[in-house]
């Protein structure tokens, strides 16, 4: 059966509408709610680390302040700009899909994925710097720069938080890559664009987590 035939909703591939939903609107509502709930679980996953950060920041205020000064603020700021811009391009991809400009949507998704790669590249340069300086977590910490108790803890949290965030960047990239593939296949249109919207929501979360990580790790 070809996707167009017998579809109750014009321009919507039939197999995307579940037999158990009374209407496409209902299904869209369900998918949005499901995504928001999933994002809530992601926020709580990071919340554990933010809680740890708060506790140890109070415990070792001086070590955290000094270690924070030794992070590469230029790269951190650049990465913030990169991610915020990528959130804009992914929003544009949704806009272009909704207005049936498939090519522009694909271009925006490609740019977003390139920004994600750029972010990971900058992050890798930073990580390489930390490894050179032995500014590493826990028992591996041997940096000559800050030698007071708590500096190792700062780097434990730094690596756990940016590491988990980095994994989310990679996950987000994969999701957007999948969405790009589907876009090129012509699966989305103004009638049905849930994939792009949900992928975009996930990418915004990845961005949002960084917006909290950046001031906590680099600025204060």
């Amino acid at each position: 059966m070809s996707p167009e035939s017998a579809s109750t909703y014009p321009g919507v591939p039939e197999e995307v509408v579940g037999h158990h939903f009374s209407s496409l609107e209902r299904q869209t509502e369900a998918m949005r709610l499901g995504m928001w709930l999933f994002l809530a679980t992601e926020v709580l996953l990071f919340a554990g680390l933010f809680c740890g950060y708060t506790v140890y920041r109070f415990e070792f205020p001086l070590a955290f302040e000094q270690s924070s000064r030794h992070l590469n603020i230029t790269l951190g700021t650049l990465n913030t700009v990169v991610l915020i811009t990528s959130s804009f391009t992914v929003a544009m991809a949704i806009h272009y899909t909704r207005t049936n400009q498939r090519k522009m949507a694909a271009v925006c998704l490609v740019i977003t994925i390139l920004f994600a790669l750029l972010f990971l590249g900058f992050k890798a340069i930073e990580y390489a710097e930390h490894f050179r300086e032995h500014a590493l977590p826990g028992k591996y910490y041997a940096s000559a720069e800050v030698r007071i108790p708590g500096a190792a803890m700062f780097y434990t949290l730094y690596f756990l938080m940016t590491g988990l965030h980095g994994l989310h960047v990679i996950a987000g990239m994969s999701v957007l890559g999948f969405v790009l593939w589907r876009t090129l296949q012509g699966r989305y249109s103004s009638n049905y664009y849930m994939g792009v919207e949900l992928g975009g929501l996930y990418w915004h979360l990845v961005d949002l987590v960084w917006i909290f990580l950046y001031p906590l790790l680099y600025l204060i």
Partner: protein
Amino acid sequence: MRLSEADSHALAGAAAHRNYLEDGTTVMSWLNTRDHKRIGVMFLASVIFFFLIGGIFALALRMKLLQPGPFLYDALSYNRLFTLHGVVMIFLFLIPAIPAAFGNFVVPLMIGARDVAFPRLNLASFYMYWAGALIAIYGMVHGGADTGWTFYTPYSSTTPTDVAPILLGAFVLGFSSILTGLNFIVTTHTLRAPGLSWMRLPLFVWGIYATSIIQILATPVLGITLLIVTVERIGGFGLFDPARGGDPVLFQHMFWFYSHPAVYIMILPGMGVISECVCAFSRKNPFGYKAIALSSIGIAFVGFFTWGHHLFVAGQSTFNAGAFGILSMLVGIFTAVKVFNWVGTMYRGAIAFKTPFAYICGFLYFLVFGGMTGVALATTSLDIHWHDTYFVIAHFHFIMVGASVMAFLAALHYWFPKMFGKVYPEGWGLVAASLIILGFNATFIPQFLLGNFGMPRRYYQYPEQFQALNVASTAGATLLGFGFLIILIYLAIALKYGAKSEANPWGSKGFEWMTDSPPTTHNFDQIPTITQMPHDYRTHEPPGVTRVA
């Protein structure tokens, strides 16, 4: 081959009237199913399997405790056994038991839906359950952990036993639990049949909804905590290691932020089951529908603010301890509201004393007893005496085994005809129920006494004056084991040779009985329109609905 339109309609019609068990009999038709009923049945088989494994661990522990000194096996094996008993029973049995097995099966039926909102995610949740289980089993075979299911640091990050795979297994199981919960919340929001407003939702759905909120909001915190401990074991990162400036009490806070609400993941679905069964077997409308429904949400909410009562002796401030103590007692109020409403429902009802009703009686007694000892334990001064003794063990087994397993067994018997279309032997059901309730009391009442006399939990050896009570407890556990064995045998026989059940053998007005038993693959020929409250026994209409063409 192309079918004419009439042919394909006839085929579709035949498929629609075949029940879900007959709709494909190959192994792949089960493993690759999207049908919530089949996924529910697969979960049911899996949790029963792990319940047996966890039960065997428990019996092995009790056998050692017959003797005060070294007996049967060494102390390290004992430590591994109680860890595995806890991990298996909590992560592989209690948490998925009612929501993933019965919730999956009956929630869509109760709300008049053809499936859960995300059928593929539902299947993924089943496979994640097994992935987590296999990782944990690998850890068990590969030496097993000796930390207790609580994985307290710094011991868990330094012990030579293989903790990492078990932590990782629990992490993956958490994902499975999150996906199940997410699915139920979205299903309840978007797939209710026409006319089914929130204040007409069956009480079991309220219970599952409240459970799902906890699953979604608490489980990720456990996930990150276990992940940090795994990283510590592998990398020596020191986040919870006092030698590196870390704070092991922070682990306890983060662990219990999940694991206390997790207690309500285990009991709230059970309370939902009891709410359904009380109405069905008293043939009466629920007394105080709103109070039962909303107290579930109340427990889910308050449950998030009680974790500190596990840390009364962990160096918490007096103010914190007092605050957490009082907040913990609030759970008692919501629970009492439910208990009074269940008893109110029974009052002047036409009670049918079937097997599920026997379990209701057991449930009420265990819940009240376990709940009151819980309130006592939330009192700081008393807790300092009872902390980490068998009193605590007896208390939470009264809730988790006493109450939750009674509810699980009530659900198993109440919905057995619904799920498989067969009748179980009522006489044997009552025999097993009496044996279990008796055996349970004999197992855990001695443990209350032992705890009060000061016997600590998780000790391999104990002073000789505690032997008599320990022997009594082991005898009770054996009785309990026999009870479960009888159920397993007669249900297996009923499944194969049992008489065919009617569509609604209990004459229940619960909404899940709107369909055939067992239901067809798509549950309903037409989506029903709900015009009544669930369990409305004032009319002679079929369960709560009029069907519209």
